[in-house]
């Protein structure tokens, strides 16, 4: 009895405990359900976001950089396809053997080979590694034909920036290179390996237009980062085609002419529109050499080379303008009313200010000078006196009005502003008061005055046209021809007297640059010589007796035709001696080219993307009107 009773009680206990365990199990299932609800219902959005982050990889598609062409469509900078061989480590079992087989077709230097093997070990095996670049068509074809034997190798074609008139136009067009740390900012495309951005010249100044817009492709990737599916793609937009105002033909002739000098610069402007027809600086460099990146040694060799080939002296060289500044003094005097057309100043070969003697370049003196003859013969004393009468403040104002002491924001970076000195400038930079003698010496473009060849060309164009011409390096959109430059507000007769003097410099007997006369009977050139002293001790000695770097700079500014100005040219030959002997023949040769070819008078090239826009004909009225 008792065991059976115990058995029954055990049965009852089992039932209770079994039901209790069933309850616990059901309760724990409830916990699972609650947890599932929390993950899949309440926090679902958060995890959905994480899931997308996990699986979607956004890859940028680099845009093609815009072409750069000259005013007639000659290709200056383009993208040339580089044929490459790459290896994908995961597709080959024997990387060494594969490299050996590729090496039979294309030479693989030992250093490259070592780099490929190192990268293959370091990075994910599905990332391709470049083995050789710039293959000839023959090599490229051979690699492709041998493809079955080269499992794991692949070929592609990548555009590489190439400059077609390398050295001739290097300073204007600049070059591209990988972005450095402080250039990696807004646009993520810059961080793409192999992406190049403008580092100098127009390439830098018009970076935004040339770069284009990056496209992207959204890829679905797995946990190993391998793409499994393309979700969508936004094509990249090619950069704008940039039409320069430069005439490559004249540019290369100018470069050739300047190459006869050791260090020189020249700027040729359309003095009506301000378009830069040519801008040369010698010596120059080959921008193609800078594309792939120089070794630090090569770079420092180039940057510290004698005569500074990397610097565009036309916008970065700052020189005392010497006598080419005398038009500024003359116009300042005329506008201030301290001289007139027929005010005569006697030159006895020197000028005294507070017991300091300032000599004229002609020791014997010029005699009685009016403004016409003073410009023509470049009499120093006339301008000492004029400057003294005008005072430095008005002189500096006129210099700025004619374009000095400033940079021009037209797409050429790294310009220097030069110096237009006045008492305020001296106090803030040197910390000393202004002395009257400094006004006198500034009147002939010496002392503190510093200008760039570009500014000299702008000054010449402004005097020639009487308008506030500003330089331009890129041709305007044909639909948006810019308004002509505003008048300077100088009296026409004052400008006419100064121009007349400049015409005399070249064309009248006794002018300082008779040798610069144009060989064409119907075109006259107006100009002005300048010889700026580098070292005061050198004055009076003959050029060949002095060290090259102590010789005077020779300058010449000019425009033509004298009666209907179209082209303005400024030339500086560093340490070339007198402006008349060293610079004026160079300027004359440039002007002959300009006048003979007359690039401004010929129809220019219109950028292909602009043309397409007009051809689409959204607005046929103006389009047909322009076509005529």
């Amino acid at each position, binding site marked *: 009895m008792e065991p059976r009773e115990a058995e029954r009680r055990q049965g009852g*206990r089992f039932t209770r405990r079994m039901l209790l365990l069933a309850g616990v199990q059901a309760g724990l299932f409830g916990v699972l359900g609650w947890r599932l609800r929390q993950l899949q219902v309440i926090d679902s959005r958060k995890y959905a976001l994480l899931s997308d982050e*996990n699986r979607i990889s956004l890859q940028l598609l680099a845009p093609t950089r815009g072409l750069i062409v000259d005013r007639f469509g000659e290709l200056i900078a383009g993208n040339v396809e580089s044929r490459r061989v790459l290896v994908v480590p995961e597709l080959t079992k024997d990387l060494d053997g594969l490299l050996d087989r590729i090496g039979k077709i294309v030479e693989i230097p030992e250093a490259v080979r070592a780099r490929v093997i190192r990268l293959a070990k370091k990075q994910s095996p599905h990332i391709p590694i470049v083995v050789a670049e710039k293959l000839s068509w023959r090599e490229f074809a051979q690699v492709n034909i041998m493809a079955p034997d080269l499992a794991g190798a692949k070929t592609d074609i990548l555009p590489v920036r190439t400059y077609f008139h390398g050295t001739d136009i290097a300073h204007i067009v600049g070059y591209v290179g990988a972005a450095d740390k402080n250039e990696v900012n807004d646009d993520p495309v810059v961080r793409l390996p192999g992406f190049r951005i403008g580092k100098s010249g127009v390439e830098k100044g018009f970076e935004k237009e040339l770069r284009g817009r990056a496209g992207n492709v959204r890829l679905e990737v797995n946990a190993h980062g391998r793409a499994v599916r393309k979700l969508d793609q936004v094509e990249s937009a090619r950069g704008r085609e940039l039409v320069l105002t430069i005439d490559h033909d004249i540019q290369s002739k100018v470069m050739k002419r300047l190459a006869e000098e050791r260090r020189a610069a020249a700027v040729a402007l359309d003095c009506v529109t301000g378009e830069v027809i040519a801008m040369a600086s010698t010596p120059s460099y080959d921008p193609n050499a800078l594309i792939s990146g120089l070794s630090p040694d090569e770079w420092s060799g180039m940057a510290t080379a004698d005569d500074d080939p990397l610097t565009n002296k036309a916008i970065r060289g700052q020189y005392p303008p010497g006598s080419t500044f005398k038009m500024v003094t003359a116009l300042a005097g005329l506008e201030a009313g301290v001289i007139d057309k027929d005010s005569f100043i006697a030159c006895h070969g020197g000028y005294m200010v507070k017991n300091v003697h300032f000599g004229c370049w002609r020791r014997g003196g010029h005699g009685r000078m009016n403004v016409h003859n003073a410009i023509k013969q470049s009499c120093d004393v006339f301008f000492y006196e004029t400057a003294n009468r005008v005072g430095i403040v008005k002189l500096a104002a006129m210099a700025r009005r004619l374009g000095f002491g400033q940079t021009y924001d037209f797409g050429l970076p790294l310009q220097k502003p030069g110096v237009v000195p006045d008492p305020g400038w001296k106090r803030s930079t040197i910390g000393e008061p202004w002395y009257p003698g400094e006004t006198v010496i500034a009147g002939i473009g010496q002392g503190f005055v510093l200008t760039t060849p570009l500014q000299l060309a702008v000054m010449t164009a402004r005097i020639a046209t009487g308008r506030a011409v500003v330089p331009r390096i890129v041709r305007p959109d044909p639909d948006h021809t810019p308004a002509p430059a505003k008048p300077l507000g100088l009296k026409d007769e004052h400008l006419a007297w100064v121009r007349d003097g400049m015409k005399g410099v070249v064309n009248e007997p006794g002018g300082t640059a008779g040798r610069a006369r144009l060989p064409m009977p119907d075109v006259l050139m107006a100009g002005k010589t300048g010889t700026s002293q580098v070292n005061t001790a050198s004055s009076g000695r003959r050029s060949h007796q002095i060290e090259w770097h102590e010789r005077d700079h020779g300058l010449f500014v000019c425009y033509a035709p004298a009666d209907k100005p179209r082209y303005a040219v400024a030339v500086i030959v560093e340490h070339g001696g007198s402006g008349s002997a060293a610079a004026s023949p160079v300027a004359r040769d440039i002007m002959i080219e300009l006048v003979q070819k007359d690039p401004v008078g010929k129809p220019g090239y219109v950028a292909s993307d602009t043309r397409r826009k007009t051809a689409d004909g959204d607005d046929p009225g103006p389009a047909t009107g322009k076509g005529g």
Partner: protein
Amino acid sequence: MFSEPIHAPQPTFTERLKAFNWLFLIPVAMLAGIGAAALYSIAGGSLEPWAERHVIRFCAGLGLLFAVALVDIRVWIKSAYPVYILAFLLLAAVPLIGVENSGARRWLALGSLSFQPSELMKIALVLAMARYYQWLPPQKVSNPLALVVPLLMVVAPAALVAAQPDLGTAVLFTVVGLGLMFLAGVSWLYFVAAAVGVVSTLPFLFQRLHDYQKERVLTFIDPERDPMGAGYHILQSKIALGSGGITGKGYMQGTQSHLNFLPEKHTDFIFTMFAEEMGFIGGIGLLGLYLLLLLAIVYMALRCRSMFARLAVGGVGLGLFVYIFINAAMVMGLVPVVGVPLPLVSYGGTSMLTVMFGLGLVLNAHIHRKTRFRKHEIGAL
């Protein structure tokens, strides 16, 4: 008083077929079918390499289930101790002659076949415990001396598998063993005392852990601490589940699992992958099906008259529950990563055969629910 005979006559084979619980096979087959469908999706819409073999193994498992269910229950009660001893010896042999595979030594090689003694022990432990309490007079159940044998039966194999190391199986042995003692009627007081003892020594144990072990515990509490390391799998699993949302991403549309962010997705993380594609609705549906299966087992346990049959059914049910709960709780980040499969759904031949064997035992007990055993039928101890 003699309302029932001391023992009912043993049922004939036809009677056994009639008493077979055919309804029970419905949730079992549904779960295996869900497993096959999920494995088809994981393979990217292919029967290879998992779905087809899963179905074949399930069919083989069904054969085993019928065989186990339809033999006389006395075969099981008589073989309980010998099977346990065999399983224990094999388990003890693993550290000596076992095969090592990815850091754990769990397998014995039999010619070209490899075999895990711990799987055999899962069945053997249930049989042996049930056999012991069938023999033990009810009034002696809470006698301290009577606790020694069942405790040894549980602790010895649990310690051996924990050393392999196979934490999941060790937990299974412990929970199933202690659960069976509880069901057999061992006094509450022992369980309360054991619980107090464990809880009070936990902080002390944590102090004595190595730094990397502490790190593992902390990472479990907050997987974001180490998203690329130890917490990676759990975080990825939670992302997959969470991004599935209420209705899921659609069959074969799961991104996390198909893109390989999910580890072991065909075995331990199959629940994640299923709930990513089928959403909260699918996940709750699957859990509901499991609960139905477990409650059916509880129902069958309650209808058995012998302690052997009750504990065999209860033990198998507990074991299934432990696996289901640990697996689901793990992929949801509720318990640490412990490699246990989801019964019937996860891919894996051994697991499938063990589960089907266990379910066969449940059905066998159900067929013999009215059987009582005479002392001479079982022998001593």
